[in-house]
């Protein structure tokens, strides 16, 4: 049993309870408001894909134009849900790992209010046609300083916690959170300053925009998601990361490589060839950290995979981890010109973005939320059935989106590549697949409604009050055999 962590001591338990209590207010605030945004974002995703499939629909209503629905959908998904849920996870993880209580909960909530108000303003502006059409940066130019400030307060608190940490050497998750906290202000300020305030050439602006999108993925979503996975998996499986050294190497590789990516989105574009070539090289080198994550994921859960049968946190996290690896492979593959000339600028790009923001990041964050919320509220998730529902509808939805967007991209790509062809031709070819996109968003919306409902119940203290976690499956027969498979004492499995 040398690989297995020891049982917690009494002091540990007291300390954790105190930390969780101090985290309750800010973390619940971020989770509940994020989940609300998520529900809105998925509804907008559904509406925008219906509109894309049937453009004549709702013609009289400009609020339902695709060009307004789609960016509103993406922005609420990224800033309303993604980043905000990430804040909650970062705060809780940082407090737990640094073993410090959160002293400025009210300040954090105030910053969160500013964030929510700004995003609300931005999404309404974009939705009503006042966006500036730069993907993921569509908000009117005067909003970004407010987002920047509220982010600075949140990141500042994270860094302060890190300074006060009681444990000497930082755990890998702490490093990722520390990194993400600092990287975002950099890319966000650079992109906004260039795009909104120094009107450069239109071509270069498109490049900067692509650079921002890729960096938001690799400098924010990936590190926060990995921080959570590297915490949740060892915690539930009950043994340390398979190779800590590889995890460290992967961290530094990510830190060095991420900033170079971005121009690979324009492989055949009118940029001097060395620019996309460098980005594509960085994307291929990303396979090093991604491979390390794969090794650690498999190594850490190997032999105990049956725990995924019970623990929602583990199941969501592992699904996200697999999606992350697939994403890395697909993107590396597409950075070869012969493939990207068929896929770039097509729906496939949307499929990739959704794959990393939803398939990886959001799923991992769901896993973390299922783990964290019972601890900070003191009650257990009301219904295992709804958790199952959330998992299956989300995963079917996300797999449908990714697969169909890649097919749509293949159907479209050749037509886009023909520079003198009719552009509408390429749109028509992708159209059939858009129906699947609409269905998938509908599935995901329903799944998230279940999630939102459960989360609100928990937040009002209406969860289950019994001993023992809410497990996905509780059939005693199944549980016993899975425990036997995992080589566990019965009591040990209760680690949801």
């Amino acid at each position, binding site marked *: 049993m040398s690989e297995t962590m020891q049982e917690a001591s009494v002091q540990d338990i007291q300390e954790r309870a105190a930390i969780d209590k101090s985290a309750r207010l800010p973390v619940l605030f971020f989770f509940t408001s994020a989940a609300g945004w998520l529900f809105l974002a998925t509804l907008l995703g559904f509406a925008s894909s219906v509109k894309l499939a049937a453009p004549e629909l709702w013609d009289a209503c400009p609020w339902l134009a695709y060009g307004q629905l789609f960016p509103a959908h993406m922005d609420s998904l990224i800033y309303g849900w993604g980043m905000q849920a990430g804040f909650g996870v970062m705060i809780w993880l940082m407090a737990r*790992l640094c073993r410090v209580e959160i002293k400025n909960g009210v300040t954090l909530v105030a910053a969160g209010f500013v964030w929510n108000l700004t995003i609300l303003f931005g999404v309404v502006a974009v939705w009503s046609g006042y966006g500036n059409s730069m993907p993921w940066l569509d908000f009117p130019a005067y909003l970004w300083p407010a987002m920047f400030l509220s982010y600075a307060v949140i990141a500042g608190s994270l860094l302060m916690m890190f300074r006060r940490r009681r444990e000497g050497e930082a755990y890998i998750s702490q490093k990722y959170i520390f990194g993400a906290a600092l990287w975002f202000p950099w890319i966000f300020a650079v992109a906004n300053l260039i795009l909104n305030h120094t009107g450069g050439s239109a071509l270069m602006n498109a490049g900067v925009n692509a650079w921002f999108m890729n960096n938001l993925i690799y400098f924010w979503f990936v590190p926060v998601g990995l921080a959570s996975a590297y915490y949740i998996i060892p*915690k539930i499986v009950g043994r340390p990361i398979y190779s800590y050294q590889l995890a460290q190497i992967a961290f530094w590789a990510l830190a060095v490589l991420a900033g170079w990516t971005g121009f690979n989105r324009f492989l055949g574009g009118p940029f001097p*060839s*060395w620019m996309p070539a460098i980005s594509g090289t960085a994307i291929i080198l990303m396979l090093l950290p991604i491979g390390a994550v794969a090794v650690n994921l498999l190594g850490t859960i190997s032999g105990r995979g049956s725990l995924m049968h019970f623990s929602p946190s583990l199941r969501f996290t592992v699904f996200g981890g697999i999606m992350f690896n697939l994403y890395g492979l697909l993107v590396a593959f597409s950075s070869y*010109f012969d493939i990207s000339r068929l896929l770039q600028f097509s729906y496939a790009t949307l499929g990739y973005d959704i794959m990393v923001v939803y398939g990886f990041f959001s799923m991992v964050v769901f896993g973390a939320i299922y783990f964290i919320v019972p601890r900070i509220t*003191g009650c257990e998730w009301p219904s295992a059935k709804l958790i199952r529902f959330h998992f299956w509808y989300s995963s079917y939805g996300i797999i449908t989106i990714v697969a169909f967007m890649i097919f749509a991209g293949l159907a479209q790509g050749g037509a886009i590549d023909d520079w003198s062809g009719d552009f509408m031709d390429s749109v028509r070819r992708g159209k059939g697949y858009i129906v699947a996109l609409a269905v998938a968003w509908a599935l995901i919306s329903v799944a998230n409604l279940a999630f939102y409902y459960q989360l609100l119940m928990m937040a009002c203290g209406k969860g289950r009050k019994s001993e023992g976690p809410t497990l996905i499956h509780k059939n005693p027969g199944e549980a016993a055999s899975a425990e036997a498979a995992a080589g566990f004492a019965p009591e040990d499995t*209760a680690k949801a």
Partner: protein
Amino acid sequence: MDDKNSTESNLDYQGGRAAVRDGHDSVRREKPEPVAGGSNKVLISWVVGAGIVLVMAGGYLGGYSNFFDSSDSYIYPGYVAAARPVVEGVDTDAEQEPWIEVWMKDGKKVYTNCIACHQAAGTGTPGLFPPLKGSEWVDGGTERLGMIVLSGVLGPLNVSGSTYNQPMPAWGALNDEKLAQVLTYIRREFGELPEGQSGVVTKEMMKAAREKHGKRTSPWTEADLLAIPGDAELPGVEVDLNTGQPVAGE
């Protein structure tokens, strides 16, 4: 849990909604926090994989970057930076590129279809693919030329003194504009045009060619082509090389 009593009293969230004593055991049941350090296994398979990735990345950079030497090279094969569009009916001022330059640049793009056989410089491959440079077919009347590209050639063909016998594919699937551009390109770039000829093939001329050509599905043979008079030109008005508009007085 031996020390259960003291643990529970300490776990009571006094102010909070949740009374830990009422079954809040999630904190108690969890394992200790993961810490830094620990196993240093570096899998051999990862190291091997990393080696492959490094080689791939090197090959990628070498293959696509063009060795960082020129800001005028692009990954897209045959990419030529777009010319400024010519607005119809607007006076071309000195700054605007003449229409013919734009037309030739577009022609050069279409010519990427032909490079594999006729080579970038139009020299062909001796014995296999005929040259376009110095070819009497290119220099001669536009009607024969239009027919050749619309449905290709099969069987022996005599080009500047040598006989070639490979199939020439049909390009009828390209639209009139593209075909007109590529023919203009090969005539002006590789051809030796008779005095006073501009070598331009316009979209109207290509359209006329398609009408003459009718619904022919089989490729041309040399005999069929020679039946077309060598100096037959496709009908079309002469255009001003600066504006692309019909020459005044027409």
